[in-house]
């Protein structure tokens, strides 16, 4: 089982609140990713990082921000949540010899009222 963790698993908050979704991995992977997943839709890459202090935006425009201060930690922050941010957020990591194999966390289901 992949050692990648996400907290919280479920979050219901009101509009305008600031939230941080946590993601940690214990595999020492250099690469980490955040995807947004809606029912019946493909996973959309919103952020990725290829190492400490390196972050890039993915194909799907997102109002969220990320940071990568430590290899194992890749938090995602929404400064002011809106109902349009309601979705499932999946964190993944990859690295080492199997660089293309992404290990996914269990996801955070966010509902903004």
């Amino acid at each position, binding site marked *: 089982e*992949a050692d*990648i963790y996400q907290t919280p698993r479920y979050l219901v908050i009101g509009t305008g609140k600031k939230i941080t979704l946590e993601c940690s991995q214990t595999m020492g992977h250099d690469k980490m990713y955040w*995807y947004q997943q809606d029912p*019946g839709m*493909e996973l959309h890459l919103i952020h990725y990082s290829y190492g400490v202090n390196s972050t890039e935006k993915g*194909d799907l425009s997102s109002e969220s921000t990320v940071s990568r201060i430590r290899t194992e930690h890749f938090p995602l922050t929404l400064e002011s949540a809106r109902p349009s941010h309601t979705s499932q957020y999946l964190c993944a990591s990859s690295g080492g010899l199997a660089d*293309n194999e992404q290990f*996914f966390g269990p*996801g955070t289901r966010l509902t903004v009222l």
Partner: protein
Amino acid sequence: QQQVKQSPQSLIVQKGGISIINCAYENTAFDYFPWYQQFPGKGPALLIAIRPDVSEKKEGRFTISFNKSAKQFSLHIMDSQPGDSATYFCAAGGGQFYFGTGTSLTVIP
């Protein structure tokens, strides 16, 4: 433009039958084609993957067939079991990946 198209959206198969899920991709530069399996409440998990230099890869009951000229690849699940009931995603890329919209598979006992 959707980089990876997946079909069908849902699939119901009898126990012991063959499940087939198809994907097509756009970018000929893609060099890695994984399939992920996702159970409710869990993140996707890598099931099997193929590179474009081979036309088929088999791991147990799961087989990927790859057609480079047609830019298509498919997942075959032989002897489908109720425990295979899950959502399956294909993906394509290299470094950065594009995912299909998923197929919900239900295997009826």
